[in-house]
């Protein structure tokens, strides 16, 4: 249904004998907002810079609307880019920064001014045209950088950790603003971040990268709830791990803390007596007071962290420990430190990761 | 990308040629003193000249004195400005930069008018007085470099914290400077010292007008009277300058890590 816009084929890049991008294949749709998510050094920036044309791939192809752009210099690609450190031209005021791409493209002055005004309104900085970059806050500078990248109507927008130099509050509001502008313009966007919450909250789809490989490519919902590899499961969100032993592989049962439970996700390759790790998100674990869950375990509260709308408890189960989230209910104070609790887990929420 | 790199090489090669050819030519010239072929006789002739030895050691002596006096003037002032009076910084820096814009010949002309035998402070009336004036003139010449070096050294160490720590331990200002600040900026100070030496060792204008037989004046005399010895002297001077500047590079390796730019 969706139209393919950008296609990356078996992309490889080596720096000094060190392969940092190891044969990446990706396909993005037109108008899509895709995040590249992964730990530091996994190759996110390198991929982005190859798309922009600042790094030359060792092998592989990058196609935009079916055409290989490898032969084009960065200034011929019509791809907008926003950098982590804003990179506004310090000798130009806001208007001249935004208008730079238009001026290079030879747009006549009256049209240029109109377009600059339009962009200023888009980023909510009308009236700031005459200011110089040093007179703006970090968040304002990054908005100007965004407007500058968007002004010449590029076919695609690349953002390399555009929010990581900003403080937490502005980070959240600006990411929403970026997403809204992107929707308005319908521009295909690649957003690099190492912040999983950021990626989950604004992306249409997320590419999870690890050491130069794509671990998983999917919608935030899939990435979070159905991680396909152990890396994705642990990197995105918090994960509980309970150690269990396979009781009967055929019946998909395991022994956990003295009881035997059925785990539908137990892989067919499991063998009787083998140790397995059962994993689940904190929100899949509940305080079993009245709740009906098929796995029920007893423990003691080891830690209580009040996070606002939710309360995270760490429960000591003897040989295991789990984190669980409960909603903050004004009428029910959380259990005290050391209090005995009973927890419940729905076996269908349990994932089994190899080893 | 490719043509840019080619251009870089071309510019670099052009620059390298301009700077290296005169050095080679001078060296070659210094060897030409005998018709029969290349010899080092010009160097022998220079080194065995009593006036060479006398003028060189005199320059060295004045240079060392200028370094000591310069440090005594600059270190406390730079420290004071950094720590106690940052608002005076623009004025002090402006003064330290003056010698870069006031030519040496103007300075010495001013000295000659101000410190002549009939003045209130007749430094030029005695030999010792003239030596002192020459030393102070060199302090002035080296002031911009000396101040910068010391100030950079002070910047890299955390003067404020060190001073407060020393204050808490009950040290007075003099002790702070001598025992805490100075060892920390010794590398920067030595850099300033070698720069001063490089500037002073070949100086001609001031010494010549104060009638002091420094190395620069000796070189000028040789240049006016001999053919090949000047080339040998130029080579020797270059080696000395290189030595002084090389020491600064070497010292930079021992500088505190925070002094590095990257």
């Amino acid at each position, binding site marked *: 249904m969706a139209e393919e816009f950008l296609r990356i084929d078996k992309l490889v890049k080596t720096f000094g004998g060190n392969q940092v991008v190891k044969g990446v294949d990706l396909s993005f749709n037109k108008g899509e907002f895709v995040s590249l998510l992964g730990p530091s050094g996994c190759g996110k920036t390198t991929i982005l810079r190859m798309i922009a044309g600042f790094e030359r791939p060792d092998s592989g192809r990058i196609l935009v609307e079916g055409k290989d752009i490898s032969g084009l210099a960065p200034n011929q690609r019509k791809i907008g880019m926003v950098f982590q450190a804003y990179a506004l031209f310090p000798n130009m005021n806001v208007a001249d920064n935004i208008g730079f*791409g238009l001026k290079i493209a030879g747009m006549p002055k009256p049209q240029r001014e109109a377009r600059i005004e339009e962009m200023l309104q888009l980023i909510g900085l009308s009236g700031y045209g005459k200011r110089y970059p040093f007179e703006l806050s970090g968040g304002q500078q990054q908005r100007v950088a965004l407007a500058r990248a968007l002004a010449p109507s590029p076919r695609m927008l690349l953002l390399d950790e555009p929010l990581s130099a900003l403080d937490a509050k502005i980070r959240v509001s600006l990411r929403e603003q970026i997403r809204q502008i992107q929707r308005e313009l319908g521009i295909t966007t690649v957003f690099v971040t190492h912040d999983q919450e950021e990626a989950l909250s604004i992306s249409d789809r997320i590419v999870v990268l690890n050491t130069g490989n794509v671990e998983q490519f999917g919608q935030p919902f899939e990435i979070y709830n159905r991680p396909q590899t152990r890396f994705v499961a642990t990197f995105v969100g918090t994960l509980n791990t309970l150690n269990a032993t396979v009781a009967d592989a055929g019946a998909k049962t395991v022994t956990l803390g003295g009881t035997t439970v059925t785990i539908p996700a137990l892989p067919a390759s499991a063998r009787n007596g083998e140790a397995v790790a059962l994993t689940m998100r904190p929100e899949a674990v509940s305080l079993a007071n009245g709740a009906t869950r098929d796995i029920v375990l007893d423990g003691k509260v080891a830690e209580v962290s009040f996070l606002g709308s939710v309360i995270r408890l760490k429960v000591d189960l003897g040989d295991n420990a789990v984190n669980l989230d409960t909603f903050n209910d004004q009428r029910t104070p959380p259990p005290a430190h050391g209090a005995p609790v009973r927890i419940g887990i729905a076996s269908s929420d349990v994932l089994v990761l190899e080893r | 990308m490719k043509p840019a790199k080619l251009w870089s090489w071309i510019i670099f090669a052009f620059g390298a040629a301009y700077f290296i050819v005169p050095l080679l030519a001078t060296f070659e010239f210094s060897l030409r003193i005998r018709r029969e072929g290349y010899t080092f006789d010009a160097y022998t002739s220079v080194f065995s000249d009593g006036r060479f030895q006398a003028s060189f050691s005199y320059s060295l002596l004045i240079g060392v004195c200028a370094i000591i006096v310069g440090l005594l003037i600059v270190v406390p002032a730079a420290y004071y400005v950094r720590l106690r009076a940052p608002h005076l910084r623009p004025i002090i820096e402006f003064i330290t930069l003056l010698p870069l814009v006031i030519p040496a010949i103007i300075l010495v002309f001013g000295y000659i008018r101000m410190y002549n035998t009939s003045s209130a402070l007749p430094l030029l009336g005695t030999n010792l007085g003239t030596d002192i004036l020459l030393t102070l003139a060199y302090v002035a010449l080296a002031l911009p470099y000396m101040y910068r070096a010391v100030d950079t050294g002070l910047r890299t160490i955390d003067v404020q914290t060190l001073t407060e720590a020393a204050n808490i331990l009950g040290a007075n200002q003099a002790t702070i400077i001598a025992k805490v600040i100075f060892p920390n900026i010794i590398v920067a100070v030595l850099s300033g010292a070698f720069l001063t030496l490089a500037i002073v060792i070949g100086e001609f204008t001031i010494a010549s007008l104060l009638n002091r037989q420094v190395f620069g004046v000796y070189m000028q005399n040789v240049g006016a009277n001999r053919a090949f010895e000047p080339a040998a002297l130029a080579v020797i001077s270059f080696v000395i300058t290189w030595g002084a500047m090389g020491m600064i590079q070497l010292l930079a390796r021992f500088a505190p890590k925070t002094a590095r730019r990257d």
Partner: protein
Amino acid sequence: MTNVSSVADPAAGPVSTGPAVRVGGNPFRFFTRLRLGDIIAIAPFIIFALLFLLIPTLGLVVGAFQDPQGNFTLQNVMDLATPQIAASFWISIRVSVTSAVLGAAIGLAIALAIIRGKLPSGIRSTVMTFSGVASQFAGIPLSFAFLATLGRLGLVTVLLKFAGFDLYKSGFNLLSFWGLTITYLYFQIPLMILIIAPAIDGLKKEWGEAAATLGATNGQFWRYIGLPVLWPNLLGTLSLLFANAFGAIATAYALTGSSLNIVPILLYAQIRGDVLHNPGLGAALALGMIVITALANIVYLVIRTRAERWLK
């Protein structure tokens, strides 16, 4: 670095609001003791600056307006307009401007080549070290080196003659305007490299990349961003190079004797033996030199403050 007007250093930290009064003891005693320490620290510097920088220079300025009896006169300054003196000012200015402009242009090109030209990394540190040496290799020995290179018997002259080209018959003379300029470049270019290198380092890589994604060519980047950002530094260095050449005397003196009558050489001769037969005229000559160097710096300051509002 040695930028004449970069006096306000952002790294200087916040301006102190005076000595803090500490807890305990008599605050006044502490205050006075502090004051004394501060005075001892700064006094040598101030006295030195007054006695050996400011007053001697001001003395000359005053002397330029005095006749031999000490009365006020404008005659000395007006006498600067005599053809001989005016000619030496003119040639001095020409040599200084030419060597400053060429030195700045060539130094900038070399600095750009070694910093941004993707040359092997060892080249940069070698060039910087060499520049440190060459920028101080001035005066008498420098003139010897160029006599040995481009003098009538110099290696290059001889080799060119060997190759069939007679440098001196073609009109070149080391003891001339161009000869002096070429010699001065030997310390002007390295000085430029030393001063401008940190400024070039300050050009962020992302500016070039941002410009490229907006469609700009490398040339457009330099025209609209690179050079405008470097401009204040370039101007500052230019005025410093000008002053550097304008006050230089030893190189020219050893090279040309008094055949090329630049102002400092004229002044040197005047100080030695009152060749102008008027002591006041010597002071006026000095005043002229001070005014011209000061003007070069003022022009720089004015242009800088007018053109660079974005400079914080």
